[in-house]
């Protein structure tokens, strides 16, 4: 291919000594370090980079920067890479996206022929019937999806995030942003300066020889200023409430998210050049003036050989100068500032061949440059609540009212020579610094240990006006062209939407999808508004813009996700479990052993010998003070004042709506010291709840709560030989049945470890002791128990065995056997509800439920055929009615190894829950089985002989 590379240009960013090889659609290409993918390809003569979404039209360079809608390519496994921005890297495998069978020939380009039938909303009007074919249509249409490919096997690219606390954050590293950063820094602020491109400078970078000296000076000053952190190839993605600002740092394809709490945000985003709407405006060879200046000045690429320039401003004029310097033949300049001069259409088949100007005059050219004005990138200002205002004299939207902590500087506000822009930036930066330092001082005063900074002058600086220059209102020419390149939406489409009644901008946007594609209206959003206004016979002011939503520029999911993983919790015995073959299970945040191979055997061993389970995740709360009993009486439904030192009691907690919230036992260890246990999942919730009652309702009570869940490794030693085992390792405690009865608790020494708490309770239904050991000695005690019990047949058991045993014993699990509507009576703990207490959480509801009777009840259920285990959540149906109606469900079910039959807990409508009743359970497979309701919840040992032995 012919080289379009120019001789060395003064400001070029490429390193001609560093050749970079890459592939484009399978063919080897070469470029220089510093090239973007697009500049390297353009230098190599490539003109078509993509096919359009709907009509599959060939598309070439339009803006040659990040926002170029025509330069989306696939790089390896990364889709939708901006070829106008991404720098070339050695070995890159670049391909065109979504083309079939190839970029040069796309079979679906036939859509162009039927283009006039693909009017906006065409889909809504067709494929209506027959309904049977609709899914086929849908599948075909999905083939037209835009965008690159993702390979689900791509390894995840998560990148770390960081927090930042700049006083002033400047979005945009052009002359105004650089000046603002410097001024804020001089004022004493810490500054973060964020620039989208690879280098600071904004339009000065490609501004030709005149722009070089001011650029060099600003860069030198920034370089020398330690208080300014510069992030290039980065973008401010969003401004959220209270100036929480997202910044994306890019390093090639890798992105990192910076979350900054900016005390003041300066938006110096400049202006984005907008395309012109006219026939053929998407032909390869039609470019905006900025693209031409970038290609020539930054990458030394000749964008064409013979050019027509249609200009209405100095940016177009500058492009002419650049083109002339680059030796491109300027065939014609149409000065659109003169009303007599018009750009009518671009002509060409697949690429630009000629340009039609006023009066039907056609000029042959392979390059058409337009310079018709700007879209104001007010995205960040919108996110701060601003509604930009249209200025007809400047033919663009300008910032409106900004909150105190956001300022706008430079080109986004107005126009002028570099000196004026810099001057404006300087004033804005100075004021931003003042506001930020005022906030910093306030925050320091409010932060206990912060060092108060010097008082900041309260006087604000008046920022001089930066008026927007006059500009003709050039949005659309006399012919119809594209307003949205990425969505293939034309001006006539927008007009048609208006005619069909979609006459607000938001409706037309949704109907045509204009501005909804990957460029999000950054380029031609104002064109869509102008075309809409014209069609609706309204003004642009009245039509308004559509909302700009975050992010300002798309962010990879990997950057947003970061490496943050939800934290997990490990018990002190975790390593032992891993070493001893435990199958892990995630239970809430905890990793726990589900079993060690055979849960049934673990059950049987526990029932006949002794078992031990790691119960460390159990919630534990240390309660101290004179009024703990009052608190317990309030948060539990039952009575607590009679609990003596050394005793343990079970209680149920209900929320104010009477719904069961948590349950567990609490021991009174000393007169004013209690030890509460909660469910594993409820530990944090219960602690917070206790503190809430104490702080908000009972501030005078003497109660201190400390969550000590992690402070104790808990292990339940269960089984007929558990006492014998414990006697071997425990000291300073009498474990005999007489002195340490069921539902008692003692502080003891276990395996030489002092300050252990032993609770004689029986979740499994066996004689059992819950041993709570200071966590740093947990593994030691665990190991000591196993060693001491080897001749007693001790074996560990996991969560599954525990679930089986508690079900055999008929203990319900909050959250499994109860749900978000289960009040205490339903759960079968009516006996624990003491409505004669003056007050407790949920009392009125429980009182009323007690009076009216619970509509449902928890029952123990045994299938008549004990070999069938109805899966949990199987429905219980009323088989008497014609249509099966659900009257309840199985909440827990297991095969009981001890009883050799299936056992269940179920919630049923109260009338069906009488002991002895036979119910019909519908299995998921569809079969019905019969099951009998027991008189009580207990399947095994209803008298509790094992427990109390």
């Amino acid at each position, binding site marked *: 291919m012919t080289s379009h590379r120019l001789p060395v240009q003064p400001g070029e960013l490429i390193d001609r000594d560093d050749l970079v090889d890459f592939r484009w659609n399978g063919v080897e290409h070469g470029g220089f370090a510093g090239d973007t993918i697009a500049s390297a390809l353009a230098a190599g003569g490539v003109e078509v980079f993509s096919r359009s979404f709907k009509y599959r039209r060939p598309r070439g360079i339009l803006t040659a920067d990040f926002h170029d809608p025509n330069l989306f390519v696939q790089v390896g496994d990364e889709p939708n890479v901006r070829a106008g921005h991404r720098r070339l890297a050695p070995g890159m495998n670049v391909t065109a996206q979504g083309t079939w069978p190839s970029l040069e020939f796309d079979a679906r380009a036939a859509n162009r022929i039927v283009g006039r039938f693909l009017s906006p909303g065409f889909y809504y009007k067709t494929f209506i019937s027959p309904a049977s074919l609709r899914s086929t249509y849908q599948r075909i249409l999905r083939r037209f999806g835009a965008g690159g490919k993702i390979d689900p096997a791509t390894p995840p690219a998560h990148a770390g995030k*960081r927090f930042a606390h700049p006083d002033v954050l400047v979005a945009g590293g052009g002359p105004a942003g650089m000046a603002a950063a410097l001024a804020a820094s001089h004022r004493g602020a810490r500054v973060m300066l964020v620039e989208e491109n690879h280098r600071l400078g904004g339009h000065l970078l490609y501004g030709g020889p005149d722009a070089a000296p001011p650029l060099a000076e600003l860069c030198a000053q920034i370089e020398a200023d330690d208080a300014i952190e510069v992030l290039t190839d980065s973008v401010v993605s969003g401004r959220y409430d209270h100036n929480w600002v997202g910044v994306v740092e890019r390093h090639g394809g890798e992105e990192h998210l910076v979350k900054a709490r900016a005390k003041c945000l300066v938006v110096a985003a400049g202006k984005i050049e907008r395309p012109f709407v006219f026939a053929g405006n998407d032909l390869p060879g039609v470019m905006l003036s900025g693209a031409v200046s970038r290609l020539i000045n930054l990458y030394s690429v000749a964008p064409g050989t013979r050019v027509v320039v249609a200009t209405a401003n100095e940016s177009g004029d500058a492009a002419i100068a650049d083109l002339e310097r680059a030796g491109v033949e300027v065939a014609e300049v149409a000065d659109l500032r003169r009303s007599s001069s018009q750009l009518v259409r671009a002509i060409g088949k697949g690429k630009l061949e000629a340009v039609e100007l006023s009066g039907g005059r056609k000029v042959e050219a392979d390059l058409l440059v337009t310079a018709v004005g700007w879209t104001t990138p007010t995205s960040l200002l919108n996110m701060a609540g601003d509604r930009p205002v249209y200025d007809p004299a400047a033919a663009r939207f300008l910032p409106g009212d900004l909150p105190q902590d956001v300022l706008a500087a430079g080109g986004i506000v107005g126009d002028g020579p570099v000196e004026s822009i810099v001057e404006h930036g300087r004033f804005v930066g100075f004021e931003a610094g003042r506001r930020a330092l005022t906030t*910093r001082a306030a925050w320091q005063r409010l932060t206990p240990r912060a060092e108060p900074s010097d008082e900041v002058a309260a006087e604000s600086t008046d920022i001089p006006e930066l008026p927007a220059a006059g500009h003709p209102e050039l949005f659309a020419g006399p012919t119809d062209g594209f307003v949205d390149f990425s969505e293939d939406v034309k001006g006539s489409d927008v007009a048609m939407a208006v005619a069909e009644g979609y006459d607000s901008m938001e409706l037309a946007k949704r109907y045509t999808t204009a501005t909804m594609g990957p460029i999000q209206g950054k380029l031609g959003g104002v064109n869509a508004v102008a075309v809409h206004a014209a069609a609706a016979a309204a003004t642009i002011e009245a039509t308004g813009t559509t909302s700009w939503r975050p992010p300002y520029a798309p962010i990879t999911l990997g950057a947003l996700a970061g490496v943050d993983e939800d934290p997990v919790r490990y018990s002190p015995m975790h390593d032992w479990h891993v070493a001893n073959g435990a199958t892990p299970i995630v239970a809430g945040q905890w990793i726990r052993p589900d079993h060690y191979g055979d849960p049934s055997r673990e059950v049987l061993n526990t029932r006949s010998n002794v078992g031990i389970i790691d119960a460390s995740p159990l919630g534990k709360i240390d309660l101290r003070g004179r009024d703990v009993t009052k608190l317990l009486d309030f948060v539990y439904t039952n009575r607590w004042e009679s609990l003596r030192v050394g005793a343990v009691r079970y209680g149920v907690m209900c929320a104010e709506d009477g719904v069961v919230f948590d349950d567990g036992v609490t021991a009174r260890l000393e007169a004013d010291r209690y030890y509460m246990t909660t469910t594993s999942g409820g530990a944090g919730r219960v602690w917070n709840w206790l503190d809430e009652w104490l702080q908000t309702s009972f501030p005078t009570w003497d109660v201190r709560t400390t*969550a000590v869940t*992690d402070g104790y490794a808990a292990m339940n030693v269960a089984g007929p030989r558990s006492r014998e085992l414990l006697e071997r390792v425990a000291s300073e405690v009498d474990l005999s049945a007489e002195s340490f009865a069921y539902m008692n608790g003692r502080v003891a020494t276990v395996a030489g*470890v002092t300050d252990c708490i032993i609770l004689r309770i029986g979740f499994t239904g066996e004689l059992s002791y819950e041993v709570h050991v200071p966590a740093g*000695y947990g593994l030691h005690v665990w190991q000591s128990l196993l060693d001491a019990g080897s001749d007693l047949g001790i074996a560990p058991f996991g969560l599954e065995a525990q679930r089986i045993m508690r079900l055999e014993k008929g203990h319900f699990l909050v959250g499994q056997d109860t749900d978000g509507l289960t009040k205490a009576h339903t759960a079968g703990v009516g006996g624990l509800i003491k409505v004669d207490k003056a007050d407790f959480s949920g009392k009125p509801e429980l009182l009323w439920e007690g009076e009216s009777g619970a509509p449902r009840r928890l029952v123990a259920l045994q299938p008549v055929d004990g070999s069938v285990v109805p899966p949990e959540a199987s429905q219980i149906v009323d088989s008497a009615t014609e249509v099966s109606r659900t009257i309840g469900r199985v909440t827990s079910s297991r095969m009981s190894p001890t009883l050799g039959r299936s056992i269940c807990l179920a919630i049923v409508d109260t009338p069906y829950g009488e002991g002895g009743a036979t119910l019909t359970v519908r299995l998921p497979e569809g079969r019905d089985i019969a099951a009998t309701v027991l008189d009580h919840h207990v399947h095994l040992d209803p008298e509790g002989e094992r427990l109390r032995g």
Partner: protein
Amino acid sequence: MADFQSPITATSEADLGSCRLRDESHLAKWRIWEGASGLALGTARHQGGSLVVAVSPAEWIVIGDKPNVDDVVDMTHVRAALRLTGAGARSVLERVCALDLDDSMTPDGAAARTLVAGVATELIRDDVAGELSYLLLMSRSFARSVWNRLEEAA
């Protein structure tokens, strides 16, 4: 009596390049409700052989000797302790903690309970011989997750 076992079992110190991460979970820690008067909330002070920390209006954490007051809860086993020391400690911590760690906001002797790697943590700026250092106390069961996150962050 058996040896104290830390939640961090694989190692007790990691070189993170610009700083060092050390497990100090074995330190004795205590929670008290009275007796540290004069210590402003949000600060930490060395007092005898102990470090006294105030992170809540009526609650102190003492790291070191058992305080001589009536009401003490032993937190040694409840909370793990990790220490991050070295010039780069701040930038590592900034990856997992949203607090402004600038000297003007979090100078030596400052203390806060806040989120570190998603876990509620007592963060104490406690420079050692003039070298930047942070002591982090968090619930013992989370310590491994936090340790790993700090290693990754570096």
